C-alpha cells in the first residue's frame, strides 16, 4: 500500500472520525440506538482499516498483543465487577439500583459501566482476531 497515496491520506483523515463515532455510539447508547457491542465493533474496525492500509506491523505498534490481552480481560472484569458491586452493596447480582442513589441514577451508572466493559472487550477481541488471521505465516 506504499504507493496508494489517496488511500493513505484518506485513512489518516477518517481515523479520528471513526474512533470518535465509536465513542459517540458507546456513550450515547443509553439514550439512542447503539451500545457497547456496536461501539466496540466500530472502534475495532478503525484499527483494522489502519492495519490494512499502513501494514499490520505499524498497527501492532499501537496495539501490542499483550495490551489487547489485558484489555479483553479488563472489559469482562469491569462487567463482572459491576455485578459483584451489586452483591457487595447487599442487593442481588447486577442490581444497579444500589450503585448510586436515587435508583434511576444507579441504573444509569450500572448500564454505563457494563456497556463500557462490553465495548472494551469487543474492540480488543476484534483487533486480536484480525491480527491473528492477518499475521498468519509472518511470524
Amino acid at each position, binding site marked *: 500500500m506504499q504507493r496508494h497515496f489517496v488511500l493513505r491520506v484518506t485513512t489518516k483523515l477518517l481515523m479520528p472520525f471513526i474512533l470518535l463515532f465509536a465513542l459517540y455510539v458507546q456513550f450515547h447508547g443509553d439514550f439512542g440506538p447503539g451500545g457497547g457491542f456496536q461501539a466496540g465493533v466500530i472502534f475495532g474496525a478503525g484499527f483494522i482499516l489502519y492495519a490494512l492500509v499502513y501494514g499490520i506491523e505499524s498497527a501492532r505498534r499501537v496495539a501490542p498483543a499483550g495490551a489487547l490481552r489485558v484489555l479483553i*480481560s479488563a472489559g469482562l472484569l469491569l462487567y463482572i465487577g459491576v455485578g459483584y458491586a451489586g*452483591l457487595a452493596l*447487599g*442487593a*442481588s*447480582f447486577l442490581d444497579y439500583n444500589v450503585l448510586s442513589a436515587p435508583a434511576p441514577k444507579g441504573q444509569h451508572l450500572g448500564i454505563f459501566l457494563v456497556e463500557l466493559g462490553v465495548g472494551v472487550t469487543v474492540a480488543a477481541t476484534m483487533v486480536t482476531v484480525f491480527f491473528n488471521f492477518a499475521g498468519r505465516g509472518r511470524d
Partner: protein
Amino acid sequence: MIAAHLPALQVVVPLVAAPLCLLLRRGGLAWALALAASWAAFAIAALLLQQVLSTGPISYQLGGWAPPWGIEYRIDVVNGFVLLIVAAIGAVVLPYARVSVAHELPEDQQATFYTALMLCLTGLLGVTITGDAFNLFVFLEISSLSSYVLIALGRDRRALTAAFQYLVMGTIGATFIVIGVGLLYMVTGTLNMLDLAERLPPMAESRTVLAAFAFLTVGTGLKLALFPLHFWLPNAYAYAPSVVTAFLAATATKVSIYMLLRFFFTVFGTADSLDLATLENLLIPLGVAAILVCSTVAIFQTDVKRMLAYSSVAQVGYMVLGIGFASTAGLTAAIVHLFNHAMTKGGLFLALGCMALRLGSVQIESLAGLGRRMPLTMFAFVLGGFSLIGVPLTAGFISKWVLVQAALERGNWLVVAVILVGSLLAAVYVWRVIEVAYFRPGARDDAGEGIAEAPLSMLIPTWILIGASIYFGIHTSLTLGVAERAARFLLGGGA
C-alpha cells in the same frame, strides 16, 4: 447474606476466574486459580442441593428484576443434582489437569486453556441453573464456543478438523434451539420457563408451538449426540486433550440431557398436545439404535479413546430410553444414569489420560503389557469398564437395573433384551482392552522399560471417580433417592 446469593455465585465464580486466568499468563498460576474456582463452585453446588432437598426450589432474581420479566435462576431437585454432577467433575478434573496439560500443551497456551475451561464450566453451570429459555441459549453458546477451543487445542492436527466439525454441528444445534425459543416467545410473549409452562397449554394445538417443539428436540438432540446426530462426537473426544475429553464426556452431554428433560417435562409437560406416546415412538427406537449400533462400532475401534467415545453415544442411548418411557421409573433411570455415567466415563477417560502421559498414544496395540507396568491405572480402567458393562456392585448396574424395571413396567421385553445385548457388547469392547493389557506380553526392548505408574496428582482424581462409580453401586440411597425425587418432580408430583 452470602447464602442468599449462592445461585448467582455458582455461575459467576468460575466466570470471574476466566479473565483472571488470561491475565495471569503463567500456566501454573492460572491452574491454581482455576482449581480454587472449581472447588468453590463444587462447594456452592453442594450447599445449593442440600438447601433444595430440605426447603424446596430456590428462585434468584438477577439484577433485582422479578421473574417473568427479568432473568430468574431457579434450582429444583433436577438441576440441583445436575449442578452437583458438573461441579464435582470440574473439581476432580482440575487437580489432574496440571501434569496432564503441562505434558500435552505448550507453555504459552496453558493460561488460555484454563481460561477456556473456566468459561466452559461457567456455560455448563449456567445452562443448568437458569430458569430462562433465552438465557439458557446464551450459556449454551458460552459452553459450546469454549469447548470448540478446548478440543482444537489437542496435540494431533486432526483436532482442528474435529473441532470444526463439532463447531458446524453444534452451531446448527444451537440455531435450532434459538429458533425454537423464538417461536415460543412469538406465541407466548415470555421467556421464563415456568411462565411458558403456564401459557402453553391453551395454545398447544397451534402449529407454531409444535414447530418450536420440533426445533428444540432436534437442536438438543444434536447437542447431546442423540443417534443419528452423533457424528461430531467420536472425533471431538478422540483428538481433544485428555483432560478436555474427560471433562466434556462427563458433563457436556449430561447437561444436554438435562435440557431435553427440562424442555419436555417442565416447559411442554403441561401441554396435552405433547402426547407421551409420540415421545415413546420417537425416542425409544433411537435409543435402541444408539445402543446396538454404537456399541458394535466401538468394538472395531483401534484407538481406545475413540472406542470410549462411541460407547458414550451408546450410553446416551440408555438415558434417552429412560426419557422415552416418560414414567417415574424411566426418568429415574435416566437421571441416575446421568450421574453414574458421568463418574464412570469421567474416570475411564482420566485413566486413559494417565496412559497417554506415559505412552504418548492410546492405540490398543500400545497398551500391551500395561497391566504390569501401570497396575493402578489399568486396574482403575478395569473397574470403570465393569461399571460400563453393568456388573453388579458397580454404579452402571444400578442404572441398568432401574432401566430394566422401567421397561418391564411397560411390558417392553424388546428393550429389556436390547439392554442385555448392549451390556454384552460393552463386555466385548472392554475385554479387548483388558486382554491386550494383561495377557499380551509388552514389547520389552523398545524403550518400554521406562514406563512407570502415573503421578499421584493424576492417579488420585482417577481413583476418586472410579471409586465413586463403585461406591454408588453399593450405597444407592443418595443417587437413586435424589433421582427418584427429581423424576417425580418433573412429572408434576412435586418434590
